[in-house]
């Protein structure tokens, strides 16, 4: 993706698509912005917004206190769009797990996560990993996760715990290993209409329990 030039107080600001290491810094700044939103700390939100824009742009001396709010908002939204994955990776979708901070989390951990992932899987150097494009990094992350899950399923299938005993059928039945949400089959937006034979439909009076109860007459009917 090419750099984008925008005007801030009449000066040209060049926004860039960052490589992986720079992008992890942006993710850290976004967390700071989320914290500022939750506490409605406008000053802190502003500081993080400016830091986000400055991280994603070539250096330019700007007094951000004097910049109109709409120019700041435009610069931020442009920087976000430029530094977003361009491919809809399934691994980025799926249910968001509990967002509580794990004990091993700390500010700046994201870079070490990616460094460990690619160095461990491919033996790449730190410089090579730092220069990856965001789409490439996330695509490879998905493939590594997929391989891990399929390897786990293979090993799991060879063990007896994958065949728990079902007391009602008195048999051991295969129970597949749970897959993460992003690997689950897609639910169709429109469910297919299933036609049923008339003789298989319920017979007799159908009582709609969602309606209000009919008041009984003096005979209790």
């Amino acid at each position, binding site marked *: 993706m090419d750099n984008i030039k925008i005007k801030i107080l009449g000066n040209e600001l060049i926004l860039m698509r960052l490589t992986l290491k720079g992008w992890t810094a942006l993710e850290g700044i976004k967390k700071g912005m989320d914290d500022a*939103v939750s506490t409605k700390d406008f*000053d802190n*939100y*502003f500081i993080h*917004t400016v830091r986000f824009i400055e991280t994603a742009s070539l250096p330019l001396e700007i007094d951000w*206190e004097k910049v*109109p709010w*709409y120019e700041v908002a435009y610069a931020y939204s442009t920087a976000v769009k430029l530094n977003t994955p361009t491919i809809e990776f399934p691994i980025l979708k799926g249910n968001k797990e509990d967002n509580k901070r794990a004990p091993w989390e700390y500010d700046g951990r994201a870079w070490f996560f990616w460094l460990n992932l690619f160095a461990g899987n491919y033996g790449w150097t730190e410089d090579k990993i730092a220069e990856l494009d965001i789409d490439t990094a996330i695509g490879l992350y998905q493939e590594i996760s997929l391989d891990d899950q399929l390897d786990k399923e293979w090993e799991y299938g060879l063990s007896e715990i994958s065949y728990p005993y079902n007391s009602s059928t008195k048999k051991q039945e295969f129970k597949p290993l749970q897959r993460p949400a992003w690997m689950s089959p897609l639910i169709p937006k429109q469910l297919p209409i299933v036609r049923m034979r008339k003789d298989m439909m319920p017979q007799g009076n159908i009582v709609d329990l969602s309606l209000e109860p009919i008041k009984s007459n003096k005979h209790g009917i």
Partner: protein
Amino acid sequence: MEYKILNFPEALKIASILAKHVDVQEARGMEGWELSSKIFSSISSDEVAIVARAFLGDFRQMNSEEILKLCTDIMERNNILDLLEAYTVMGFSQ
């Protein structure tokens, strides 16, 4: 008179007051004076003082009609409805 253009922190503070009283979709169909009348009749006197001070600085020498007219113009120049929409998108008004 030089019209005040809000910087980012000022805009967020103003949006935090106005967002409670303005339905952006409904306001899109209003004239500027209609919207500012609705706003100033809905917000508290303390909030009026905060908004007027942010837009006009020292407004003590002005009458209410002048304040309303100037605030209407300044809100238009600051794209106040876009600000309120952006305020919601950022996540502040949830």
